[in-house]
């Protein structure tokens, strides 16, 4: 037994597991998937290729990619139980609660099964369907059944909007999915590993992870960014709004990260994409931090003696703007 008996809040700096899936190199602002730096994957690879990389430890051959795409496409339909359970939830339910509940139903089993790659594929295939079906129900629209001939990203948009999106929009969502696919031992991943450590099943691990991702300190962040940008309204109001907000001790959404000491590499890629795709929103989103040095009005730097990293936009800020331009549910 280790003799490390002092309490470490948040387990910061404690090595809780060994992994080859992804590494967050905070000091150098790098995110690495299985040896590949994220910048080399983000705009080149499909979500399917990156998912294969995370599951198998290497990029797929053409035949392997086709097999994976087919397997994903074949498992996009919800089970009867999941459809009924989805309908049982009120249409104003928080989409993350819907996801938590319906993933749980979709994955029920008679007997405990060990996690496998095929089970991971089946689960991954169902997420867009659940979110899109629910999103359409909230809008009072008929559900759109998934299509087998579209990619993961393209099919998601198709199920949301009922029509195919432009290649540019599909590409943007694909890049977002690639960028967010893994990120070291973050809280939701860690929750999944804690659950898996009891030899529970894969769906149980995923349901626990969704519960953790829901928290505003974790996956809930992009939605909060959008809300703040909407409150700010226009680029020329940004400076005054942020200064007033700081006086009122309002948290700035989309800034600060426990690990990155420099700019989050995902934020950099998303920022560039946002500039290309949605210049107006880009203008608004970048105004408070248009220089490379953010103004000293971030919640963390406002605390004297804080040992937190220098504030820099986390991925949540451009991600929020991007998701807004896609008209995808911000909790996706």
């Amino acid at each position, binding site marked *: 037994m280790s003799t490390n008996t002092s309490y470490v809040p948040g387990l910061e700096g404690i090595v809780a597991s060994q992994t080859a899936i992804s590494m967050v190199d905070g000091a150098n602002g790098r995110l690495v998937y299985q040896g590949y730096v994220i910048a080399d994957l983000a705009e080149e690879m499909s979500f399917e290729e990156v998912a294969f990389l995370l599951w198998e430890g290497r990029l797929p*051959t053409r035949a392997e990619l086709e097999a994976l795409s087919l397997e994903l496409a074949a498992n996009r339909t919800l089970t009867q139980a999941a459809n009924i359970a989805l309908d049982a939830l009120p249409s104003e339910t928080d989409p993350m609660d819907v996801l938590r509940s319906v993933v749980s139903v979709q994955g029920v089993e008679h007997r405990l099964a060990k996690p496998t790659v095929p089970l991971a594929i089946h689960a991954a295939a169902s997420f867009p369907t659940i979110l899109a079906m629910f999103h359409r129900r909230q809008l009072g629209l008929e559900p759109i059944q998934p299509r087998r001939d579209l990619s993961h990203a393209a099919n998601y948009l198709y199920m949301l909007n009922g029509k195919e999106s432009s290649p540019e929009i599909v590409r943007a969502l694909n890049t977002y999915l690639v960028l967010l696919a893994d990120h070291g031992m973050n809280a939701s991943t860690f929750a999944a590993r804690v659950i898996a450590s009891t030899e529970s099943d894969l769906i149980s691990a995923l349901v626990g992870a969704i519960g953790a991702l829901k928290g505003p300190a974790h996956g809930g962040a992009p939605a909060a960014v959008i809300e703040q940008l909407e409150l700010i309204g226009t680029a020329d109001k940004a400076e005054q709004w942020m200064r007033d907000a700081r006086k009122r001790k309002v948290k700035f959404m989309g800034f600060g990260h426990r690990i990155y000491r420099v700019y989050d590499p995902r934020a950099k890629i998303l920022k560039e994409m946002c500039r290309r795709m949605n210049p107006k929103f880009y203008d608004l989103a970048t105004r408070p931090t248009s220089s490379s040095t953010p103004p000293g009005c971030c919640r963390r730097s406002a605390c004297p003696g804080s040992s937190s990293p220098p504030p820099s936009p986390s991925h949540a800020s451009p991600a929020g703007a991007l998701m807004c331009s896609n008209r995808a549910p911000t909790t996706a």
Partner: protein
Amino acid sequence: MAEFSPGLEGVVAAETAVSEVDGANGRLMYRGGYLIEDLVPVATYEEVAYLLWHGELPTEKELEALRRQMAAARKLNASARGTLAAMDSQTDPMDVLRTVVSAQGAAKALAKPTLDEAIALTAIFPTILGATWRRRQGKDPVEPQDDLSHAANVLWMMEGKEPEPDKVHLVDTYLVLLADHGLNASTFAARVVASTGSDLTSCVVGAVAALKGPAHGGATLAARNMLDKIGSADNAEKWLTEAHARHDRFSGFGHRVYRTYDPRAKILREMAKTAAPDLYKTAAKTEEVALKILHEAHPERPNATNVDFWASVVLTGAGIPKELFTTLFATSRVSGWTAHVLESLSDLRIIRPASRWIGPQPGKKPLQLAKR
């Protein structure tokens, strides 16, 4: 970077006053400093839940208020009923629990965990357990009864008849014994989820998901399955010797924290004598032989019987089918999970440990698809 402790063994991941496991001395202490063996003779599950949530045992008036609040929260809402009905009746009961708790707690807006929610979540578990069992039997669910205790409602909603006081007492004592146990895996899962600022239902769903594992809550069923295979006291020596030769693990023995007899196992062992006399004989012989074999193989290890071993006998005596053992465990532990989440709110910091990189060095260049 710090050393890697597999399973975070020995790492202090939280400060807590909810319960303390003193493994060296074989003691379990609940909030307020009460030893488990002192609580069992005097406190019902409701009183212990109150203790875990508030830090003190309730007065008669406070207990009455809690009972009324639980009684008012025992019915499934429309989302939970619809979700329950959607699932195949033979679904794993822990999957049913995970899903129905999730649906019952589905909300419009994110809310901070509260004590009222903790009480409501705790109150709903027997209802889900009872309905799950009756669906498995092809029977209609039975409505909860407001004037019955928590433990009595468990049996009532399973069986649909007035439960025998002896059996209610067995279930109640089991619920008291299992209500909390330091930073076990499911409680830790709940605290990890809570650390992101998520809601109480998400925390409890994550905890149910963790409890399902055979290395955690599923261990009671494994112990009972082993006793079923052994069959009788006469067969224990032969069966265990053969199993040991095959390198099969004995279910119901060993614990990471206890270096001596688990205090809960001690209490349950006594209860098992009258609760299930036949199974007790098989279990007592099994325990004797298993400890002998384990000690011969690993004299350096503290090979003690754990709570799951004797719980499996007592629950059998209480008439709980083995398929529901883990669900009943959850029915008890939910008060501990929620107490931990509520406690953690006062010093909420996202739980985000480090990991050791064992993959390729960064900078590998991806090949285009055509070249792979």
